[in-house]
């Protein structure tokens, strides 16, 4: 029977080996390696608030990292949910206050200094008028051109109401029958005659019946019933607008007010849910569109022309005890349409609610029902309207607007009676608006 060896093990792994092992690393410094742990971040898939936050953060980073604008827009509009559809021309009462709340817009009566009727019409002999404060270019519009414009406008009115023999239109188609062709005529003729004074108009694109749409989120609500009860959801809005015509330009217009300047007026706050307006929810494609696709060179807006529908004409409102709503509805139309247009322009340049604007976007609009014209200017200063991004955001969007003014009194015996020059001058001012460097 072999006795187990009681010799210590260390005799065999002798000191020589021990020494050998020691000598190998003896001359250098002991290698100190920091323990490399992965970063401690919350899970992606757990059912916890931190996991939800992490998923949201990952989504925002994904949108920020998207290189192409089309990819960004696709990521932001991919998910479809129920959203409130905002109609710029609406039958609801006091819609302008609600729309101002949804778009964080301040309304200032009157027009900004640049566009007001300070531009004088002088003869060629007297020389140029000194430029007004605000950097308006000193283009002189001489009497001949102005009278030419007057005759163009007068002819346009007479063409539709006097020269052409037209059938009596069917119910609620008067605007389409009489006013829409006059407006197209007016816009195209005035734009082409003013093109020699405004080189921007030569490069512009005039669209008829374009589609303008915008999708945004503002505010939050707790879901009251259903399997998602108790969860907090943002309130989504969508505008699908069809102005009568619009002018798109390749260069951006100059801002009316600097971005950081604060306006004293307040944005009206409405504490009710949008469905009390009443506004209704639907779920369909989330569209963001300025009238042309992203790759179009004319990606900035200049002026939109809106035609008031038959349902919202002055006569009908006054008959229905809503005489004060006439101006309210024009304002609501302008605010909603211009916010959608400028917002879509900004998104085409890659800005969105978490990457706010670095420069303001400016557009103009003219709302008319054939006889009464009102002029509006809009400056978009911020797209950060969600609850998360709006907390420390002092910027507000600004809308300037006029009351409605008559272009002409009536058409009598082949003559336009009472053509108002101020309205024409304002229209000319609007169309001659261009960035200073041009």
């Amino acid at each position, binding site marked *: 029977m072999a006795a187990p060896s009681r010799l210590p093990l260390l005799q065999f792994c002798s000191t020589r080996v021990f020494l050998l092992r020691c000598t190998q690393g003896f001359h250098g410094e002991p290698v100190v390696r920091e323990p490399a742990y992965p970063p401690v971040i919350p899970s992606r898939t757990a059912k916890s608030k931190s996991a939800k936050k992490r998923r949201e953060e990952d989504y925002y980073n994904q949108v920020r990292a998207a290189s192409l604008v089309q990819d960004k827009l696709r990521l932001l509009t991919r998910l479809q949910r129920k959203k409130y559809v905002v109609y710029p021309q609406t*039958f*609801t*009462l*006091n819609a302008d206050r609600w729309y101002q709340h949804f778009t964080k817009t301040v309304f200032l009566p009157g027009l900004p200094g640049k566009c007001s009727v300070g531009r004088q019409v002088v003869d060629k002999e007297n020389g140029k008028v000194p430029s007004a404060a605000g950097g308006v270019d000193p283009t002189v519009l001489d009497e001949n051109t102005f009278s030419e414009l007057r005759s163009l406008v007068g002819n346009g009115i007479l063409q539709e109401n006097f020269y052409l023999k037209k059938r009596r239109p069917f119910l609620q188609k008067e605007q389409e029958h009489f006013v829409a062709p006059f407006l197209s005529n007016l816009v195209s003729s005035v734009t082409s005659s003013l093109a020699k004074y405004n080189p921007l108009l030569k490069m512009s694109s005039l669209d008829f019946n374009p589609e303008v749409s915008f999708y945004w989120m503002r505010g939050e609500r707790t879901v009251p019933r259903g399997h998602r009860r108790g969860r907090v959801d943002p309130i989504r809005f969508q505008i699908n607008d069809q102005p009568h015509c619009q002018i798109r330009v390749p260069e951006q217009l100059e801002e009316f007010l600097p971005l950081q300047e604060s306006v004293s007026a307040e944005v009206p706050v409405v504490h*009710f849910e949008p469905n*009390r307006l*009443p506004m209704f929810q639907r779920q369909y494609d989330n569209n963001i569109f300025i009238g042309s696709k992203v790759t179009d060179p004319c990606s900035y807006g200049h002026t939109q022309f809106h035609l008031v529908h038959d349902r919202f004409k002055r006569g009908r409102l006054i008959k*229905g*005890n*809503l005489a*004060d*709503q006439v101006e309210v509805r024009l304002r609501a139309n302008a605010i909603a349409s211009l916010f959608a247009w400028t917002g879509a322009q900004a998104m085409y340049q890659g800005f969105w609610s978490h990457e706010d604007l670095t420069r303001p976007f400016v557009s103009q609009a003219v709302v008319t029902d054939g006889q009464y014209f009102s002029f509006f200017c809009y400056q978009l200063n911020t797209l950060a309207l969600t609850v998360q991004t709006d907390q420390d955001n002092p910027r507000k969007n600004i809308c300037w607007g006029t009351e409605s003014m008559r272009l002409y009194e009536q058409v009598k015996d082949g003559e336009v009676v009472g053509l108002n020059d101020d309205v024409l001058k304002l229209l000319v001012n609007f169309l001659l608006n261009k960035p200073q460097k041009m």
Partner: protein
Amino acid sequence: MVIDLKCACLYLSRYPLYQLGNPQLRIFRTNFFMTLVKPGKEQPPDTVQFRIPMEMTKCDIKNYLEKIYSVPVGAVRTRIQYCTNKKRNHLNQRVKRPDYKVAYVQLVQQQTFQFPEIFPQKDTALEPGSVEEMQDQFMQDEQQRQKADPRRGGVTEWFGL
């Protein structure tokens, strides 16, 4: 059309639909009534809520308020509230709670309307020194004594020292 004395009830006969050529419909002394109610959910300040009979339409409401009460009306919206047919009585027969129509009327020119508080909250301030006040105080002290020690953090006192 003046209401005939024979058929006094307006909505037993057919609703007087208008066709081109009919004489102007005139109704004197209506047979239907509107009830002003307090809104269940918060409404904007220019909205007034009514309960109306099922046969009334938006135009009827507008004319009713304008002609009889001289209240100019901006917009009217209506809806029908369906009430349950599920309840059963002691004979196990289904009992229908009647449906009703609700109208939301928006007033013109920024006028507002607030439904008044019919049952105002009374502040139950007991007189100091009265019997009720001493009883109330005693009950409160008793409840305070029955409560567990908050320092135990909800742990029961069945075990322990």
